[in-house]
């Protein structure tokens, strides 16, 4: 639909005609409706699709609680594009088409290491795109390989929060704000790392005595 122009400088930035004129309580209601009715597109390329699209939607985790179980097979009717899996060079134009075919407002969640950065295939691979944001703008990134359904829920709730706060609605084509959605608040990466080292040494599950430095710990 040509919503994304071909301007090389900022491909995702383009003012749409009739930008939001009233940012009032009506906007609040609209944002409430949009955030609570995120219909995902049934789109999954690899492993993450099982965890994020299927296991999250299934009985144990139940995506329906958030009103997001109405998976639409047609991009026209979907609001949320969950990039679940690796994007390779051959898929790139198709992903772009899918994104273009979706009607505004549309949101994108990139799940899994592959969709964030290329993941295990970032090096030595001749086809893997290193991150879905190289193709389309991404609202929320959910790390994991693949992320647990709970992690995906955290990402979904983060997106809902972003919509309610108007972070995506006000500037529809500037959605490159990465959100570390899985790491719970007040926990730092260093803490996790220290705990990991402690646990690994305590359980001595592996032969760490040889040369811990070689293992990168």
């Amino acid at each position, binding site marked *: 639909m040509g919503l994304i122009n071909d301007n090389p400088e900022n491909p995702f930035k383009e003012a749409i005609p009739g930008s939001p004129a009233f940012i009032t309580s009506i906007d609040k209601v609209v944002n409430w409706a*949009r955030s609570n009715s995120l219909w995902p597109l049934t789109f999954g390329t690899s492993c993450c699709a099982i965890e994020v699209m299927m296991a999250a939607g299934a009985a144990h985790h*139940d995506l329906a*609680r958030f009103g997001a*179980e109405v998976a639409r*097979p*047609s991009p026209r009717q979907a*609001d949320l594009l969950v990039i679940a899996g690796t994007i390779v060079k051959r898929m790139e134009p198709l992903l772009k088409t899918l994104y273009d075919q979706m*009607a505004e407002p549309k949101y994108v969640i990139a799940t899994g290491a592959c969709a964030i950065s290329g993941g295990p295939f970032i090096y030595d691979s001749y086809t893997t795109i290193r991150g879905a944001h190289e193709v389309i703008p991404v609202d929320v990134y959910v790390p994991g390989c693949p992320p647990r359904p709970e992690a995906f829920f955290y990402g979904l709730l983060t997106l809902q929060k972003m919509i309610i706060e108007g972070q995506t609605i006000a500037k529809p084509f500037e959605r490159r704000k990465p959100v570390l959605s899985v790491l719970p608040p007040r926990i730092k990466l260093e803490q996790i790392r220290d705990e990991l080292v402690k646990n690994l040494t305590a359980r001595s599950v592996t032969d760490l005595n040889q040369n811990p430095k070689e293992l990168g710990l």
Partner: protein
Amino acid sequence: MKSLSFYIHNLYQNQQWLDFILYLGLGLILTLSLMSVVALVLVYAERKIAAHFQCRLGPMRVGWHGTLQTVADALKLLLKEDLIPKAADRFLFALAPFLTVMAALLSLSVLPFSLSATLSNMNIGLLFLSAISGYGVLGILIGGWASNNKWSLLGAMRAGAQLISYELSMTLSLLSIVVLSGSLNLNEIIASQAQGWWIWRAHLVGFISFVIYIISSTAETNRTPFDMAEGESELTAGFHTEYSGMRFAFFFLSEYVNLFIVSAIGSILFLGGWMPLHIGEWESFNALMDFVPGPIWFLLKTGALIFLSMWFRWTFPRLRVDQLMRFEWKFLLPLGLINLFLSSIIALGGFYFFP
């Protein structure tokens, strides 16, 4: 034509036109609001019922137990961008959803919610209903054609073939009730069931036509196991693949309103409509039942049939398109014809229970 001009002339003469306009406007508003309420409630009910069939909870977060979920969905769909594909036939593409909604709206206007609460008490109500329900398929056909998408077209063609075929069985099963009750007026059909509902009063005939009606009405509303036209796993989204936002919401809406309408017709013809449940000689029980107002009875019976339809949807897999046709033309249609013949015999001889 003469009678119409005479009628309009009469309106001006007697100053009834104001009443007429008021009546029209009020009716339109009532029907429209009824339609949206029905759709919102049914979509919520479907999602909740499906969830509980599947050991889940369904919508929980928006409002108490997710009651506002469909409101949010409707609001979102209203405000979503409206896309028209470049290659689509713009006029027909825009027209199609309205045709479908119009059919649903027109059907709603003749449903008797109680003896008095009916917008227009036509004396050919049933004929009107079956005519209008056949017209709803036009929207689907036009929508699938105008989308200029092969999957849409496949879905639309399937829908056309299916609806036209199942229309026959549906009309035949309606006809046997018409024969039994001797009227096309919906209120009179209900009144004829004062002694007992047609589903069991006319020996097996009423029950058979009820079964035929349920099957063909499920096909009429394009629901599993007859959801050829949408067939998510086969045709992506069928005839509404290219529709987005409001236009898609119209298809969505009319699907659920149609579900309500066919269930309502089923409850009118076979379950006595707004008639309370009476059991033979149990006087006090019958008196208690009479205490419940007619619209409640009507909605209860309709709700039961809607639940049945939802039960089908979340249990059965989809039929294949040729099996669907074979089932209609080789089994359902002959059965309907035989049933109609038998019901004529019963009606002529007055062989039903409690004559």
